[in-house]
């Protein structure tokens, strides 16, 4: 009868593995944000101008905004299935701190929806004629910034998971919150191309990432409790 309790670390891994497994089994859901990113980013040259110089000017902003929108689109299925099938209740009733379990879900979600976008961003950057010395900066800043989008978005999804039509509310809640990251990310690319040093921007983005890692899962967890209530 007496069995070994899992440590919080084991529960964290189990949750991470489970969510990655679900994502693997639902490849469509996984591909959608990625496709969305590609399509949105390629709409800008069509909508604004194919002129390489003008594109180079807006490329950083286009990439960041597309990444933000793709992350927002992907957010919706972070907790919805769990809410509908009751797994969320199991998550909340676990003896382990909810913080780590929510963090595991957020990490899994970012690995599936955020990381592919980051990885493909240099390709889009090339198509948008971003100066080649900015590729690395774009890549690194997106790598630091997109997890923040996921973590912040997670709060919004957790608050709205019980709602029937949540798409727009989620956007209205989440997008303004993402502005600081957007500012830091685009400024980093723009200012370093003007000769500023990168480290300050990385420090700011890193600080934002750390702050949201430490606070956002707590808020998401509280929001999930409210939604299940």
């Amino acid at each position, binding site marked *: 009868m007496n069995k070994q309790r899992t440590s919080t670390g084991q529960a964290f891994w189990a949750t991470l593995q489970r969510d990655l497994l679900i994502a693997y089994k639902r490849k469509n859901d996984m591909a959608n944000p990625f496709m969305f990113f590609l399509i949105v980013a390629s709409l800008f040259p069509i909508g604004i101008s194919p002129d390489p110089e003008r594109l180079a000017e807006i490329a950083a902003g286009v990439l960041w905004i597309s990444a933000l929108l793709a992350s927002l689109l992907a957010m919706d299925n972070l907790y919805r299935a769990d809410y509908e099938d009751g797994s969320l209740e199991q998550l909340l009733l676990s003896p382990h701190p909810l913080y780590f379990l929510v963090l595991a879900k957020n990490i899994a979600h970012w690995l599936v929806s955020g990381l592919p976008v980051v990885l493909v961003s240099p390709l889009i950057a090339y198509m948008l004629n971003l100066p080649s010395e900015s590729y690395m900066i774009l890549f690194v800043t997106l790598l630091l910034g997109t997890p923040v989008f996921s973590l912040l978005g997670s*709060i919004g999804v957790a*608050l*709205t998971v*019980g*709602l029937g*039509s*949540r798409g*727009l*509310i989620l956007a*209205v*809640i989440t*997008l*303004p*919150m993402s*502005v*600081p990251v957007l*500012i*830091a990310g685009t*400024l980093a690319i723009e*200012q370093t191309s003007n000769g500023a040093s990168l480290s300050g921007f990385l420090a700011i983005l890193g600080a*934002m990432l750390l702050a949201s890692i430490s*606070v956002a899962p707590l*808020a998401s967890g*509280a*929001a999930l409790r*409210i*939604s299940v*209530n």
Partner: protein
Amino acid sequence: MWLWFSKLGSPKWFYELSGKWLPWLIATMILFLVIGATWALLYVPQDYQQGLTNRIMYVHVPVASLSLSFFPLMAVAGTITLVWKMKLADMVVKVAAPLGAWFTALALASGSIWGVDTWGTWWIWDGRLTSLLLQLFLLLGIISLRSALEDSDAAARACALLSIVGCINVVVIKYSVDWWNTLHQPGTTFGMSSDQPNGPEFWIPLLIMGIAVALFFTVSLILATRNEILERERRSQWVQELVQE
């Protein structure tokens, strides 16, 4: 202290007390408004740069600075809602959001009207206006979340949480927008911040208008909260007795 706190949490107590205070508050508010507006419109000297548009400052500055107090207010009330489950605090969170949106919208409108002549355009992505705009969006998000959630208890807590998160976010947004703005417009001393009132003939009427708008903020918050109390407590004994009178 604790007794006072729990008493304050009682909607009935608040309704009765605020009923007694309201006439006085409204009277003081009108007094300050009349003095402040007359002074601002008639007596304040012309600004050497802006001419008579400096009269707009006496509306814009108090409204804009008070609109910055909504998120802290909602965050404090939201914390009380979450921790002590005080109903009155949730009512404040609920009524403060639309009121804050009105304040922010007026601050934006007066700011852009003021800017028409200084900037030559109705809208400019000025640091202050941009962060006010984002604050307006956040407030609208809270309002729409409230209306979307059917269960009142869940709505109360969800909005309380979002207010706290939003409050932290507003601060971060403010700093990052300022930073963004200074980097994009190096060396502009253009705009409202350069025209600080410098003598007492400028700032005393501003102070009076500031007090007037703060009183208005209090009065309108109390009025809205009182209605919310009546609606939520409509089944309770004391509301029934009140209605019978």
